[in-house]
């Protein structure tokens, strides 16, 4: 444990390079970035047709104000696309190295397993953050280009200026990004269990999907507040006249609980596992 601080920095930089230098990661990010762009084009083409103003969430409002494209895009990506891509990167973090046989070489480096795990966790988290912020940025740019950015009408019927509207959109993106931390931890844990990355990826995505299914069953109302995905859509709080921070805080607290449990499980597993490949 007495390694120089620089070794962890080197490790993290190398993991980030490895992750973001991969064609697979670039393709995932490009795919996610295409969602707001596609949405903007579709809405732009359809805005004078009979289908204008229809659609779930905020899709109907996008044509009036490009700012809403940020919400509409995140609203569309959050249930499945984001968990899927987070599952792919987090699930691959350890299992991918194990499958290609590079894990045991990593373990011969003068760095503890805990540091290796921490570095992998941060790299996976960086991907989740990058994905959400990229969607938001592309949505803001294409929303502005296609529909213009103006004062924002909140769900409560109040209107806020453009600067505050942008600030609130940033809050939404940040909340969504932080909401994915629990899933990153779950993915990392699955990744320490297997040498087959696809298994860990699928399992992580399934956890998110199962969680949202359980969230719809009224019989399980007692456990709903603690489900991984239950508070994901609370970002709507940023669109109300008075943002209730305690609602957002409890959402973050639930993520913290999932992170604590699954990161410690991942650590327990990874530091005791026999690495043979």
């Amino acid at each position, binding site marked *: 444990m007495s390694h120089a601080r620089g070794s962890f920095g080197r490790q993290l930089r190398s993991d980030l390079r490895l992750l973001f230098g991969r064609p697979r990661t670039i393709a995932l990010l490009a795919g996610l970035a295409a969602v707001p762009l596609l949405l903007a084009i579709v809405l732009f083409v359809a805005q004078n047709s009979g289908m204008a103003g229809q659609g779930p969430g905020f899709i109907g409002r996008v044509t009036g104000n490009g700012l809403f494209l940020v919400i509409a895009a995140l609203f569309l990506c959050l249930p499945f696309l984001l968990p899927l891509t987070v599952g792919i990167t987090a699930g691959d973090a350890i299992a991918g190295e194990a499958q290609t046989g590079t894990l045991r070489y990593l373990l011969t480096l003068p760095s503890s397993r805990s540091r290796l795990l921490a570095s992998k966790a941060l790299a996976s988290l960086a991907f989740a953050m990058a994905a959400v912020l990229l969607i938001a940025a592309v949505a803001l740019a294409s929303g502005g280009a296609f529909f213009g950015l103006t004062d924002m*009408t909140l769900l*409560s019927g109040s*209107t806020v200026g453009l600067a505050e509207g942008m600030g609130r959109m940033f809050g939404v993106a940040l909340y969504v990004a932080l909401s994915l931390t629990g899933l990153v931890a779950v993915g990392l844990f699955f990744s320490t269990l297997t040498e087959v990355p696809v298994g860990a990826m699928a399992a992580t995505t399934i956890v998110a999907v199962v969680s949202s299914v359980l969230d719809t069953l009224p019989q399980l109302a007692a456990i709903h507040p603690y489900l991984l995905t239950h508070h994901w859509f609370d970002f709507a709080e940023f669109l109300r006249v008075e943002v209730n921070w305690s609602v957002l805080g409890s959402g973050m607290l639930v993520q913290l609980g999932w992170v604590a449990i699954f990161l410690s499980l991942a650590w327990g597993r990874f530091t005791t596992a026999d690495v043979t490949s």
Partner: protein
Amino acid sequence: MTSTAPARRNFLRSPWVVPIAVTSAVAVSLLSQPLFASGDSNDLPDVTADQLVTQVLDAKPQAMSGTVVHTARLGLPDMLFTEATGADPISLLGGSSTMRVWTDGVDRSRVALLGTMSEYSVVNDGPEAWTYSSSNDEAVHYSFSDADLARLKTMGEQARVEATKKQAELPTPQEAATEALARVGEFSTVRVDSQSTVAGREVYQLIVTPTTDKTLVKRIVLSIDGETKIPLRVQTWSTQDDTAPAVEVSFTDVTFGMPSESVFGFTAPAGVTEREVVVPLPQNDGAVKGSGSAHEMPVVTGTGWGTVVEFKDLDVAALLAKDPSAMTGSGERIIGSEEAQKMLEEFVPEHSDGSGMDMGVLYDQLTTKVPEGRLLSTTLLSILVTNDGRVLVGAVPAETLRAMA
């Protein structure tokens, strides 16, 4: 490090202790939450039921804000309400709804019914009121005519507050409690139950029990804030269900203090559908002026909780076609219980196309066919629409209505 480790290592030294400790810590903090939220307390001075009722009715309205959860278990099919798109008052008829409440304690308030990605707001700003639904981007502006406004200016403050109160509203614990207590002397008995905690505040519990057994209402439990005497929770129990209250409206968090000015104002946002509604100011005798004269006054049978109201020549078809004039002016505040009155109002479409649902389909699904007509039966309210165009409504068992038809 691992492959050479002895097979039977001391468990307490294994890294697995860490996740186990972390998981237990999370579980403990999770389990301890509800214990703090609802424990019995015993620190408030003792009061008698009559003293408490007087204190509640005399309590000075407070500037406050908070979150209210409304839960209805009326025995209606849940699916009907979850299908509703966005936040809509009709969702109050089934399941749990969350509302956020702000009030200045006088005549300005905002109540917002929250949907996942939507909101239905009711803003009362002195003599004006607004409702805004984010799902269909429609704002409704309720105001008085110029003549009524002039008359309003001549009234004293108390009368003005009374007169302008709630052209539009969503149920909050205060309103439910006021209605329940209005009937205390004549038709109900009251007693004080053990003290408790609601929204982190110590409360008295007041139990209002109807003296008659002709009603569906078994008892109403009011939780009164020990300090301010403001009702923080109202549970209405039905005779049909002993396990849980049929309707519960409760603060889950509450802050006393003046809310920020921004919540009380409302300006219709650019580009919304805006509708103007001129509300008749009640005359001094409380009757509503003007509208509703086309209908015969409803026939009221019985008193107190067992009251049954009979509407004649009510055009149910027009009601279902969302023609609000079919209902305006009749049946204001005459049904047996507050909750029943609320439900009736929610069945009556107030806004042109707010529910996003076909009321005709809803009507067919909610009511059952009986020899006398069509019957809607819930745990707190029964409505019978007879074949010859009469509508009987009451917080009484369905059999009572059928016998009267």
